[in-house]
C-alpha cells in the first residue's frame, strides 16, 4: 500500500476516523491492527519477521532491565544484535556475500561454491530493525526503562506511517506518545494535511517527473553522453530529495492527523555548505542513529587523549556501513566510503581553506563563500550519486566516462529542450527551492493561515488541483522502499 495509492487514501481517513471514535484506552490496539494490515498489504508472510523482531527485543529489553550485572546485560544485548542483524544479513546481504565469494572463485578459475537464492527483500526491514535495535541499546545504556506493555511496544516498532521508510524513531520520543494518546485537535489535523499535501507535491509533481528522465539515462548507460548524463545525475539529487523528503512529509503528516509527532528527517540538505553540513541535514534519523550507535561506540580515546586519526578512521567506518545499509551492492559501499573519505578530507582541509578565504579576502563576502560551499557540496554529492543511482559498478564507470564525452552536444541540447516534462520538472525544482527559502525566513504556512478565508482556501484548493493535474499518477514506488 503505497502512500501515493488510492488504497492508502481510503485507508488513512478510515483509520483516523476510527482512531478518534475508539476509547482512548484501546487506541493503541486499533493502530497496531491497522499497522499490521498496512504491512501485510505488501506480503503477508513477512509479518512474521516484524512480529519476531518485536518479541525478541521486547523480551531482551526486559531481561536487560532485570539484570544488575553489566556482563549479563551485555549478553542479552549481543543476543538481540545477533538476531536482528542476522535477520538483516540473511534477507538483505546473503546473496551479496555469496556473489562476492563466487566472483573471487571465478576470478581464480575455480568453480563458485555458492548458489544464489531468490530472496525478496521484506519492505522496510532495514528501518524497523534499526528502530527496534535503538530501543534495546537505549535500555542497555540506561537511557530508557524497558517497556512492559507488549502491545504498545509492538506499535512502536510497526507504527504504519513510518514503518517502511522511517523516520527511524527513538523509543524515548515515540513510546511516550503512544502511552498518552491525544484528543482530537483540528489545528493538528489541518497541519498534518498541509504537510501531506506538500509531500505529495514533492513526490508526484517533482520526483516522479524527474525520475522519468533519470531512468531514461541510467537504465541505458551506454546510450547517452555529455550534458544529458550530467544533467540526469544532478536531477537525481533533486529526485532523491523530493522522493524521500516527500515520503517523510506524508509520513509525518499522517502521524500528525492522529496526534503523533515524528522527527524531522530533512532540513533543506541541498543548500548545505559542506558535506558535514549536508549529513546534518539529510536523512537525519539515520545519520543520528549511526552517530549514536556506531560512531560513538568506536574507540577513539587513548590515555584520556583524543586520537585524531582514530576519529577519522571511525568516520570512514561509519560511513562505509551507512553506505552498505542502503543496499547490498558495491555501488553503495563505494558511495559510503567516498563520503567518509571526503568528510575526513574536509576536516583536514578546514584550516587551510579558512586561511585561503582569509588571504583572498573572500571571508568578508559571506554570500560568495556560502555560494562556493553550496556549489562544492552539490558537485561532490552529484559525483557520488553516479554510484548511488547506477545499477552496477560497470554502469557507474560507463556513465562517468560518458559524462565527459561532449560529442553531439548541440543535438543533445536540442533534444533536451524538446522534452517538456524535463523543462517543467526543472521549473518545479525552482518553485520548490523558492518556497523552501521563503518558508525558512517567513514561515509561509503561518503567513497563508493568517490570510482571509477566501484567499486561504483558494490557495489550498488550487494546490490540490495543481497536484492532481500535474502529478505523475502512476503509483511510482518511493526510492527508499527498496532499502
Amino acid at each position, binding site marked *: 500500500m503505497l502512500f501515493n495509492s*488510492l488504497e492508502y487514501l481510503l485507508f488513512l481517513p478510515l483509520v483516523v476516523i476510527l482512531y478518534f471514535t475508539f476509547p482512548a484506552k484501546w487506541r493503541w490496539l486499533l493502530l497496531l491492527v491497522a499497522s499490521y494490515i498496512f504491512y501485510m498489504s505488501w506480503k503477508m508472510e513477512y509479518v512474521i519477521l516484524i512480529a519476531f523482531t518485536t518479541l525478541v527485543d521486547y523480551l531482551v529489553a526486559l531481561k536487560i532491565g532485570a539484570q544488575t550485572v553489566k556482563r549479563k546485560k551485555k549478553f542479552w544485548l549481543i543476543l538481540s544484535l545477533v538476531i536482528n542483524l542476522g535477520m538483516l544479513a540473511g534477507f538483505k546481504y546473503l546473496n551479496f556475500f555469496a556473489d562476492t565469494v563466487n566472483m573471487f572463485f571465478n576470478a581464480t578459475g575455480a568453480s563458485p561454491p555458492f548458489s544464489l537464492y531468490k530472496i525478496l527483500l521484506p519492505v522496510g526491514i532495514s528501518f524497523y530493525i534499526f528502530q527496534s535495535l535503538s530501543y534495546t541499546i537505549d535500555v542497555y545504556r540506561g537511557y530508557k526503562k524497558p517497556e512492559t506493555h507488549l502491545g504498545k511496544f509492538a506499535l512502536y516498532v510497526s507504527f504504519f506511517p513510518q514503518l517502511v521508510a522511517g523516520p527511524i524513531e527513538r523509543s524515548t520520543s515515540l513510546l511516550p506518545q503512544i502511552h498518552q494518546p491525544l484528543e482530537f485537535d483540528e489545528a493538528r489535523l489541518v497541519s498534518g494535511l498541509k504537510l501531506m499535501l506538500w509531500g505529495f507535491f514533492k513526490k508526484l509533481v517533482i520526483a516522479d517527473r524527474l525520475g522519468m528522465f533519470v531512468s531514461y539515462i541510467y537504465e541505458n548507460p551506454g546510450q547517452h553522453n555529455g550534458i544529458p548524463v550530467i544533467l540526469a545525475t544532478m536531477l537525481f539529487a533533486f529526485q532523491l530529495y523530493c522522493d524521500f523528503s516527500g515520503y517523510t512529509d506524508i509520513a509525518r503528516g499522517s502521524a500528525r492527523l492522529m496526534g503523533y509527532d515524528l522527527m524531522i528527517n530533512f532540513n533543506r540538505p541541498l543548500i548545505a555548505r559542506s558535506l558535514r553540513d549536508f549529513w546534518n541535514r539529510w536523512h537525519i534519523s539515520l545519520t543520528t542513529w549511526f552517530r549514536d550507535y556506531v560512531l560513538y561506540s568506536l574507540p577513539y580515546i587513548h590515555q584520556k587523549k583524543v586520537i585524531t586519526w582514530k576519529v577519522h578512521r571511525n568516520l570512514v567506518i561509519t560511513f562505509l556501513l551507512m553506505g552498505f545499509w542502503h543496499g547490498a551492492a558495491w555501488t553503495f559501499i563505494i558511495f559510503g566510503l567516498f563520503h567518509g573519505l571526503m568528510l575526513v578530507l574536509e576536516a583536514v582541509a578546514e584550516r587551510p581553506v579558512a586561511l585561503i578565504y582569509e588571504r583572498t579576502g573572500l571571508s568578508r563576502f559571506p554570500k560568495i563563500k556560502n555560494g562556493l560551499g553550496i556549489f562544492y557540496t552539490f558537485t561532490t554529492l552529484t559525483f557520488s550519486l553516479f554510484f548511488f543511482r547506477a545499477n552496477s559498478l560497470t554502469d557507474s564507470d560507463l556513465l562517468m566516462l560518458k559524462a565527459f564525452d561532449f560529442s553531439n552536444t548541440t543535438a543533445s541540447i536540442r533534444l533536451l529542450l524538446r522534452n*517538456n516534462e524535463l523543462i517543467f520538472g526543472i521549473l518545479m525544482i525552482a518553485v520548490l527551492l523558492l518556497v523552501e527559502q521563503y518558508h525558512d525566513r517567513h514561515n509561509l504556512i503561518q503567513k497563508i493561515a493568517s490570510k482571509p478565508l477566501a484567499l486561504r482556501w483558494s490557495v489550498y*484548493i488550487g494546490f*490540490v488541483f495543481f497536484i492532481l493535474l500535474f502529478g505523475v499518477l502512476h503509483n511510482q514506488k518511493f526510492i527508499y522502499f527498496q532499502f
Partner: protein
Amino acid sequence: MLFIMLLMMINVVLDQSFKALSVHNILNKRMDEQFAEYTDTLKYLSLGNSHNCVNTYLLEKSFNYGSPSENYIQSYYKLKHILEHSGKKPEYLLLQADISTYGAKIADRYEYNSYWIKYIDYPELARIKNDRQVLTKWLEGKFFSYAGNYKDVQLSIVYRIKIKTLEMHNGFRPHRDYRNFAEEPNRQQLAWDKAHLFSTPGVYFDPTIKAYFKKILQLCEDNGIKVYLIRYPVSQEFYTEETKIVPAGKLYPEVERIASDYSSYLGTLDYHNLFFEHPEYFFDPDHLNIKGSDLFTLKLADDLRLLSR
C-alpha cells in the same frame, strides 16, 4: 465539510471541462459518432493505435476505428461493444500487429479512461491482469478524467494551434504534418527514444496482451469475421532500435502460432520495411505523414484486392 464540498464541486467542473475540451476526447467521440452514422457495407474495420494509418478515402468500405495509444485490451472491448451494440459487423478486421504491440509497456498504458470507460470491463481486466490498481482507472475515467493528464491539456493546445482543423473521414484523421522525420538532425536518437517508450527488454509478449489477443481472435471466430494482422510501416531507424529490444525472431513466430489456432485468421500483411528508404514519408520515427499514409493505403488496398480474388 464546506471545504470538502467545495473541493468536490471544483472537481466536477474540472472533470466535465476536460471531458468536453480534451482533443483526444473530441476526436474519439467524433469517431464514435461517425461509426454510428456509417451506413455503407462495412468490409474492413481497422483497429490499433496511432500507427494505424489506413486512409479510408483510399480503402473503400472501410472504417478506421484506431484510437491514440490503443492496445489489444482496448481493441477487444471496443470490438465487443461494436458487435453487441451497433448492429454492424465487419467482413474483415485489420488488426495492428507491429513489433511494439505486444510488450509490457503497451499493456500498462491506460490513457484516456474517460473515453474507454464505456467499453472496458475494468473488473474483468483486473482479474485477468491480476492487478487491483486497474480499478482506479475506472475511478479516474469516471470522476477524475483530468488527473495526471496535463499532457493531454498541452496536446489539446498544440493541436489547436498547429493543426487547426480536426478533419476526419470514416474514423481516419490525416496525421500531423508540421514536422518531417527526414529533416531531423539526430534520427537514430529520436528512434531510440521512441523505441524505449514502447518496449522494454525482457517481456516481449506480455501475458495480458497475449490473453486479449486470443480473446480478439476468438471473438472474430465466433462472429465470422476474418482477420488480417497488419504490420504498419515504420522508419528504418525505429525498426533497428526496436529489434535491439524485442527479439522479432521469437515474437513473430509466437504471434503466428497463436493466430493459426483460429480459423478466422487469414494471414499477416507485413509492411514494416515498406518505407525504409523514405524517411520523408514519416512525421516521426513511427508515424507516417499524409503522403506516407496515402501511399501505404494504396498499396494495402491493392494487396487486399488481390487477396480477396
